[in-house]
Structure formats: structure tokens, C-alpha cells
């Protein structure tokens, strides 16, 4: 298993390198001149030419690529073209905001999705099963931005229960240490602020959780149905074991592998794919950071941003693969 892990980690290198090449060329293939966008409409031709030279965009592509990769190897993610800020310093707050949001969303999705799937399988063809599966179908098909706006309308505007945008009560700002506000408020011992942060998390994380929740519920259900038809489950039930234990202990453990795979993939998707949620809820996350960088043709930000998300995506899936072994002793990596 150790060799397997090391091998997988080593495989990161060619994968990420290949991806860096692809991203590097794709973003340069889009028309649009960074100097023009940075300088704005009032830019003069001379100023644009000077800036292009200064940003090193006149260099041949291989020189630019070489500089970028050389920087990466020494841990330098480059500098934003539009703000001249080092991406290394800039990126963590965005990433932290997205991590916090997507992890909470994922917890909700897993907790509700897995349980809904299990109960649907347990009481197959019951009213619960039908309702849950219809809701899951709606959940997969619903546009996130619409759901987000409806949540804001209902819970912020009409009921006035929850804030509609942002991460905190800006009149009483969180003292930032890690940029994960749930942790920062606890470090500061401010439980009232912790509550505020949770209140701000509810609407966006629910919006973000909908699709993974629905997918997890459906996968759990079908996987559970398969397991519950197997012989050892019949035996367990024949022994007179309580149904709850049969389902949650014996069946779930065997049904969980495909569910875990889907969860791993969904977490990865949430990290980069939360742009709509981040936009609607004014959430300063990494999806919007990269999206805006594309509008500005901020090449280094796009490259490094995608690189980081891809790395996390691959690592999460590696963890999932390793979890297989922990859960199912029949699986072995040699």
C-alpha cells in the first residue's frame, strides 16, 4: 500500500505537467489582449505596447512557458498580471472560502443523501422512496442560480431569517487567522460570531449541496438495493437481527464503495464548480477568482488556479482510493 501511494503521488507529476501545458496553450488561444483589458478603454496604443513588453508577453511562447514552469518548480505560482500581486499570497483566502463552503455543503449532501438513499432502498417502492427519488431528480435538474435566488427571496427577504450574502456580519468582522471562519471564530472564542458564520453558510451551502445530495442519494439507493438482495443479508435477517443493524452495519459497509467514489468526484467538482453559487451569494471563493481572471486574460492566475484545484482534486481521489482498502479488506493495492 505504501508503494502504491508513493507511485500514485509520483504520477501526479506527469499529470499536472500535462495539464499545465494544455491550460497554457488553451488560454493563449483565446483572442483578447491582457494589456488592453488591464489598461481599459482609455488605453493608448503606446501604453498597450509598453505594458505588453513589461508583462513579458512579447517573448516567444516557449520562453514564457519556461519562465512559468521554472517558477513553479521553485514554489512560485507567478504574479497576477492585473494586480501585480504574487498569486502565492493571494490565493489562500479564496481557496479557504471555497473549502469552507464546499466542505459544509458536502457534509450536508452526504448526511442527507446517504440516509435518504438507505431509507429508500430499505423501504423500496414506498411513498418515501418515490418522494425521495422524485426530489433527487428535481435536485439534479434544478439550476443552481435559480435555487439560490429563490432561497434569498424566501429566507432573507420574506422571512428575514438568514443573511443573503457574504461570509460574516461585516459590522463585526471575524479576526482572520486561517481564513476558515468557522475555525477563526473558535480560536478567538467568539461563539456569537461562530453562529453568524453558520448563519451565512446555510443558504449557499444548501444551494451548493443540492446536486451532489441528489446524486449521492440515487447511487446509495441502487448500490444498497443490490447488496440487500445478497445471501448474507438474508442470513442475517433470518437470524433475527434487527433490521436497523442489518441495513446500517452489514449492508452499508458493502454498498459504500461506489458511493465513496461519487463523493470523491463531487468534492473535486465543488471546488472549481462553485462559481454560480459564489456569484449569487457574494462568496469570495476561488471559482470566481479564476473566472474573473479569464475575463481579464490574467494568464498566471488562470494557470496556477487551475493547477491548485487539479492537485486537490487528484489528492482527494487518491484518499478515496486508499479508503477503499480501509473499508473493504478484499481490495488490495500491490
Amino acid at each position, binding site marked *: 500500500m505504501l508503494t502504491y501511494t508513493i507511485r500514485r503521488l509520483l504520477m501526479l507529476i506527469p499529470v499536472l505537467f500535462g495539464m499545465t501545458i494544455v491550460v497554457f496553450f488553451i488560454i493563449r488561444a483565446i*483572442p*483578447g*489582449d*491582457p494589456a*488592453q*483589458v*488591464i*489598461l*481599459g*478603454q*482609455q488605453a*493608448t*496604443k503606446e*501604453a498597450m505596447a*509598453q*505594458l505588453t513588453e*513589461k508583462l513579458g508577453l512579447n517573448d516567444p511562447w516557449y520562453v514564457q512557458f519556461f519562465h512559468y514552469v521554472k517558477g513553479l518548480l521553485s514554489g512560485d505560482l507567478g504574479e497576477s498580471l*492585473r*494586480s*501585480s*500581486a504574487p498569486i502565492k499570497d*493571494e490565493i489562500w*483566502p*479564496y481557496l479557504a472560502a471555497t473549502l469552507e463552503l464546499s466542505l459544509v455543503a458536502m457534509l450536508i449532501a452526504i*448526511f442527507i443523501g446517504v440516509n435518504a438513499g438507505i431509507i429508500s432502498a430499505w423501504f423500496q417502492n414506498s411513498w418515501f422512496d418515490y418522494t425521495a427519488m422524485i426530489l433527487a431528480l428535481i435536485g439534479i435538474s434544478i439550476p443552481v*442560480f435559480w435555487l439560490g435566488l429563490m432561497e*434569498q*427571496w424566501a429566507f*432573507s*427577504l420574506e422571512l*428575514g*431569517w*438568514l*443573511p*443573503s*450574502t*457574504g461570509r460574516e456580519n*461585516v*459590522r463585526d*468582522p471575524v479576526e*482572520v487567522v486561517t481564513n476558515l471562519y468557522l475555525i477563526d471564530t473558535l480560536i478567538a472564542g467568539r461563539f*456569537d460570531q*461562530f*453562529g*453568524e458564520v*453558520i*448563519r451565512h453558510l446555510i443558504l449557499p451551502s444548501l444551494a451548493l449541496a443540492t446536486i451532489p445530495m441528489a446524486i449521492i442519494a440515487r447511487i446509495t439507493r441502487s448500490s444498497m438495493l443490490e447488496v440487500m438482495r445478497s445471501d448474507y443479508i438474508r442470513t442475517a435477517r433470518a437470524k433475527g437481527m434487527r433490521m436497523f443493524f442489518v441495513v*446500517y*452495519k452489514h449492508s452499508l459497509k458493502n454498498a459504500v464503495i461506489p458511493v465513496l467514489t461519487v463523493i470523491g468526484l463531487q468534492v473535486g467538482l465543488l471546488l472549481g464548480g462553485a462559481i454560480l453559487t459564489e*456569484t*449569487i*451569494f*457574494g462568496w*469570495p*471563493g476561488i471559482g*470566481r*477568482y479564476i473566472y*474573473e481572471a479569464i*475575463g481579464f*486574460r490574467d494568464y498566471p492566475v488562470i494557470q496556477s488556479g487551475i493547477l491548485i484545484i487539479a492537485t486537490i482534486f487528484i489528492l482527494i481521489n487518491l484518499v478515496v482510493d486508499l479508503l477503499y482498502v480501509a473499508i473493504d479488506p478484499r481490495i488490495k493495492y500491490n
Partner: protein
Amino acid sequence: MKRKTSFFVSLLIVLTVVLAACSGGNKEKAGDKSETTEPKAGGTLIYGRGADSIGLDPINITDGESIRVTHNIFETLFVYDDKLKLQPKLAESSQVSEDGLTWTLTLKKGVKFQDGTDFNADAVVFNFERWMDPANPYHKGDFPYYPFLYGGFKGDPNHKIASVKAVDESTVEITLTERTAPFLSYLAIPMFGIASPDAIKKYGDKFYENPVGTGPFKFESWSRNDKVVLKKNENYYVNGQPYLDEMIFRVIPDNSSRLTALQSGEVDIIDGLNPDDADTIKANSQLSLIKRPSFNTGFMVFNTQMAPFDNVKVRQAINMAINKKELIDAFYNGYAEVAKNPFPSSLWGYNDKIEDYQYDVEAAKKLLAEAGFPNGFKTELWTMSNPRPYLPQPLKIAEAMQANLKAIGIDAEIKTYEWATYLQKTGEGEHPMALYGWTGVMADPDNFLFPNLSNTNIEKPASNRAFYNNEEFTMLLQQARTTFDQDERIKLYQQAQEIFHQDAPWVTIGHTTPPMGLAGYVKGFKAHPMENDNFAEVYLTN
């Protein structure tokens, strides 16, 4: 398993309690309009906006969202008030020599930067040196507006500034290499805010996130894409001002969400309102709606170097075919004035005598036939995919214009590009007809006319996207630049507008007056036409 279940149950209980406790004080909103109008000190104002600042060093930015913040931290030597009149700010007065080359500025005394250091002639000279000299150790960044106004940096052949000298503690002498009528206007551009030399030395290339100026608010913190926090400058030289203790600029990208945030009391003032949502604010007695005076023009450019738009009759015919009034009513919800000139009527030099092309389908058809196209022709109409301040619904406007063109037999296919691509392709002149627009940064007609219409700017990548090449027109602009007599300048610009009208290189569409929403308890706010809002005089009555 049992332990886990009970953990979740208790977590839920805790959450419910926390929620109940926190949601109590959320709904209270003031807005009693009968309250005293005497300014009240104190409080926090939260401004909801669509995008974050890019940097907070004014000389290194070009975007409105950065200026919105820096304009409250920094001050310029001169300033445009909300009626677009040039007023002294950090300077007290100015004098120009006989030959029109040497400007002597007398500075305000007793002004301090927010870090406690003195604002004086040396500080002004330090700023100019930093801006203009690429060899200066503090010249770090792009300084985009400097060469744009002064013809290049120190050492460049067309650089307009010969020297900047401190004569005494509060007198600065600036010598130019050519007569420049709008020079004081240049000094009023918010990018030329005077920064604390000590802070620039201290922070170096991190100054853009540690700005220090003389303005009413001092910088406190910035969480990117989220919020910028400013605190009251206790030592501001205007007695009693600013009234607010704190100003927070929050980023809420989605227009509808921003409106919800205003309605639910999370922010106190918002811009970037959908024109259709203005009615929601009007209907709410606790909110008030204001219109920002117009300082932009939305228009469509013809590529005048491309057939058939090289024919002036074709351009005039299309000008008659477009129903501007209908466009403004339908897609601006009335928050715009119909445009007949390249710049808005709030700016001096506007020629009101010009009679706009009347919407007349028959006359347009006739003119088109005279031009040799009795059956019309096929062409393309380009538009950008995202709204711009001067074109709130670009695609819909393009579609309506397409229908107008169809009525005179012109078959225009709509092509849409994302902004960066759009700027590049139109700069290269690939478009036959393209929607475009302009927001002024200077209260001078030159800023609207010269970049967009002078024939010195048709070389690709061109800022004159109509590729309008009229020597006589350009000469008028050049002449106006070097004329000091204001009446004479007005005459020159009015003459230029007549030529523009005759040649019809654009279809002018509208000057927007973007609506903004305010909580009823926000008082003293004046929307500045150029978006250089100053919050020193704003106060809260709740």
C-alpha cells in the same frame, strides 16, 4: 452509531438555538424621513458593489471600482465637483505664465497625511517624480494614465513635463513643454491622488494594499473579492468631517442578490441596479432611489473604412432608421437620455443646436437607394456579451436595432463576443458595425472626442473604432487642446460636433443615468457623474 446520531441531534439543537438568538435584531430598519437634517456623526456605511478593486494605489489603476475606494483615501490637487466644475482641493490656487508653459500652484496649508506626515510642496514633487520617471526607485507598476495624459514618461520624446520644482513649503512650479489647456483638469483625475512619500518608501511595491493619503477616510483592511474597510480620518482638515466612523465596500456580483441585500438591510447603498428593478426600490418606503447624472455615451460605430460604410449616405440612412427613443424606453427603462452628440449635455461645449436625425423609415430608404442600395445589403452588427454602464442590455439593444435595419432592407447578422475579445477585434477593425460606448474620466470634451474620433488614433490597434478619418475634424481638436480661452474652446468643440453630425461615423444611442438604491437613513450622498463619490459629507440618521 448511536453516539454519532446523538451528536448530530445535539448539533442540530445547538444550531437552532444559535439561529434563534442571532436572527432577533435583524429586521430593524430606520428610514423616518422627518428626522432632523443636521448631520449626525457616527455609524458604519456599507456600500454594495458588483466587483472588487484591483489595487488601491490610484496611479496604478484604471477601473472604476478601485477609484471608488481610493477617491476617499486620497485627494487630488484639483477636483471636479458633482456639477463637473473644477475646484481647488489640495491646491488653493493656480497661475499660469504668459507663454502658457509654467504653472504655479499654491498648496493648502496645515494638511497632514493619514500617517501624520506633512503634506507640502516636497510631497507633491515626490509624487510627480514617482509618476513620471521610470528610473525613480518608487516607480513600481504600470502608471497607465500618466503617459496617456503627458505623452510618455520622462525621457520619451513627446513627454510634456519639463520640470516640477518646490519653490517653497507650499508652492510648486510645473513647467510643461507645450501649451496644454486642460492641464488643471489632468490634475483633477482621481488617479493623480497625492500619496504620502513616507508610506511609499515604507511599503514599496506593497503600497497598493497599504494606501496612505490625505482624504477623509484611512485604509483599514481589504479581503479580496469580499470587502474593503475604511475608518474615519480623525485628523481630517475639514472640521467635523467625515461624519461616518467607518465605510465598508462589499462585493456582491449578482445584481438581484445585491438588491436583496439592500432590502434586507445587509448593505445601505447599492449601484449597478437592473433598470427594471428600480421600480422595486421606488415602491419601498424605506428605500430611496437616486439617478446618477450621466457621464457616458452608448453608441454604434460604423467601420468607415469598410464598404458600404465608407459611403456617408449609408451611414446617414442608418441613423434615420434607428428608433432611439424606443430603445431607451424599452431597454434602459427610461434611465437614459437620447444621445445626439458624442458626449452628454452635462459637459461644457455640448452643441444643443444640432438637430438629431429623425426616425423616418421612408427617408432612410430613399437615402439608401441614392447611395446605390435600393434593396439594402447584408452585413454584421457586433455586440459585447456582458452589460456595460452605457449599454445595460447589449444583446437586446442589438436585436432591436437589427429589426430597425430590416425595415430599410438591411440584413444584419448579430455577432457577440466576450469583452476582452471584443476590444481586440474591434481595435483591429474586423467589424462592419459594432456597439460601443465611452465613460469620461475628465470633464473635458477632449476626453470623449480625441481617443474615439481623432484620425491620429486609427492605426491598429485603434481606439478610434469607427476609423473615422477627417483631417479638418482632427485639426479642430488639436487646436482646442492648445487654446486657453474657454469661449474659443467651446466654439471649436461645437464646430467639431457639427462635422461629426454631418459625417455620421456613429449612431449615438443614449447617455445613461444609472439608478442607485439607498436606505432611507443615508443622508448627504451626492452621486457624482464620474462615479467619484466622496463620502465625507454622508451621514446616517438611524
